[in-house]
């Protein structure tokens, strides 16, 4: 029961993140021209989806695909966190940069700053995803900290 509640809570938090991605990102990083273009080109939506999918996807791979006693220490989980924290901002950077390049904008500096914000959000979402699904993992359910 407790575990189902945690899963539902995680899913709700992620859904709220998707719904309120724009105000969240803008509250964390706002630069008028950059943020306006991000909003106008609907980049926030794609970025939030990628951020959520990577967080849940990497966590799912860790807990249910790898699911190994050889990779069940807290520092193994940190490795997966680092992967998620690298992959999501990288994809998002490349995606946004391709949009802005097509429009002939140069937001390189802003994109780096935004990527670091995206990294923080990815870390949080990865934690949310991990704590939502880990109970069902046979070997990693107590990673990173005991249930």
């Amino acid at each position, binding site marked *: 029961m407790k575990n189902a509640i945690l899963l539902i809570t995680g899913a709700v938090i992620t859904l709220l993140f998707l719904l309120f991605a724009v105000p969240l990102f803008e509250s964390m990083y706002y630069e008028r021209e950059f943020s306006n273009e991000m909003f106008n080109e609907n980049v926030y939506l794609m970025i939030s989806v990628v951020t959520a999918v990577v967080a849940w996807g990497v966590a799912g791979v860790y807990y249910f695909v790898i699911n*190994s*006693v*050889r990779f*069940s*220490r807290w520092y193994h989980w940190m490795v997966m966190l680092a992967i998620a924290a690298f992959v999501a901002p990288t994809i998002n950077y490349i995606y946004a940069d391709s949009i802005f390049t097509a429009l002939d904008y140069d937001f390189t500096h802003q994109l780096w700053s935004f990527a670091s914000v995206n990294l923080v959000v990815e870390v949080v979402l990865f934690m949310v995803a991990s704590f939502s699904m880990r109970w069902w993992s*046979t*070997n990693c*359910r*107590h990673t990173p900290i*005991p*249930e």
Partner: protein
Amino acid sequence: MRLFLFLVGGTGSRVMRPLIMQFAAGIHPLDSEGNPMPLEVVPIIVDPHKANEDLKRTDNLMRWYKQIRYSIYGETVDVRKGFFSVKISTLSDIIPVGTNLSDSFLFNLGSIASKKFQDFISYSTLDTANQALCSMMFSDYQLDTKMDIGFVGSPNIGSIALNQFKDSEEFKQFSNVFQKTDRIFVVSSIFGGTGAAGYPIIVKNIRNAGNNAQINNRGDLRDAKIGALTVLPYFNVQQDENSPISRADFISKTKSALFYYHDNLTGLRRHGVDLQESKVNACYYLGDEIPSNPYFNDPGENGQRNDAHVVEYVGALAVLDFLQIPDQQLETVEGYAQNPIYKEYGLANNKLTLNLKDFGLPTRLFVNKQLIKFHLAYLYLTYQLKEDLGRGYTLDKPEISKGFLVTSFFSTLTSDFFVGYMTWLKELRANQRSFMPFNLKATNLSDSINEVEAKAGFLKSKIDYKSVLSTMNKLSQQYAKIGKYGTDKVIFKLMDLLDETFEKLVDEKFNSIV
């Protein structure tokens, strides 16, 4: 089912050692449908030689076993599977509170042990004619024997001294608690003193219970289901001219005792005619023509410590075999077994170095898997548990914390019982015949069983501690959902998970173990 197990003399204690190991491995007698039966064993060591090292080692093992078993399952008898699941109790454990009996596996023979034989029979007060008679029946050495070292290979003095058995407090208490459904088994050797003398006396006093007005349940005792293991010569002793014990005498002593048993115990002879009756329902005979390594010739003064031997291991199986015989085959009428059963044992392979596959198929099917499971569990608890604490199943409720390693349970299991287990295996390996079920140098699981290959294949690793942890994690998760271990059954959780895990892994990860 309850079994009163009389262990007579040094061999009695030595046979109990492998039986304890078999119980520790979770071996249970099976009913006619092949299901394990719950069992409580009440071992009673009948040996005046309390300083006997073999007796002390067995006594220690039983005490440790009892503590471990209590920690895992508590007092309940009705446990049908798992390591240490057979209950071992002292006689005082099962008698009503307030009875004056020490909490010990030892039958109190204090009044014998403290005396020389000549004092026991009041030789000095006999008249000249009776003294002369005694001198004909007993040598000077025997008359001068102080019986705290046993009967030093002299059943003729043992058969007199042990007759006080029927008047003892232990026998009275035993008769008080004995029930019709209980069984009795006597383990003794035939080529020494204490065992050869004690076995017929114990059986006689039980069968004659009907005439003993001092005890209860006389009818049930008289018609009790009795089995007995008679161990024939199997070990060798160093030649010592000053010792009353000599291997050369073993065969002649055995023949004399067998003739006596044939006429009075295991077969009955009246008016020169052999009757198809016996006082014993099931008789097991066991020996080995290949003598063991010569043991130090010690009549008893130096403690008598003999290495474990495969004959004792097989002897322990006789106890389990007896428990599997259906009641209707052990019918006793007026103290006489109606269809006595006689059994011997043969190896499948007559080799000097034996492994688990050299025994007959019924034995292999009965014990191999459990023994292997127990050895793997021993390896895991000894070499890996510490590493796994704080991971996986250990964190499921109830949690197995690092503090578990300093509990009295863990200490008794690993520092006492497992040390005794390894000593037993090493002695079995070093003796002749050598019995080497396990590779004692291996600390990894895949190389630990002699003559049994661990399976490996494409994308399938050999058994290792990671696969154990993974399986325990999986099972623990399943059991946590149904609350199998409650919130506090930490010890039961660990031992049960190990049992279940190796039940699964032995099948999956080893080629045929039988």
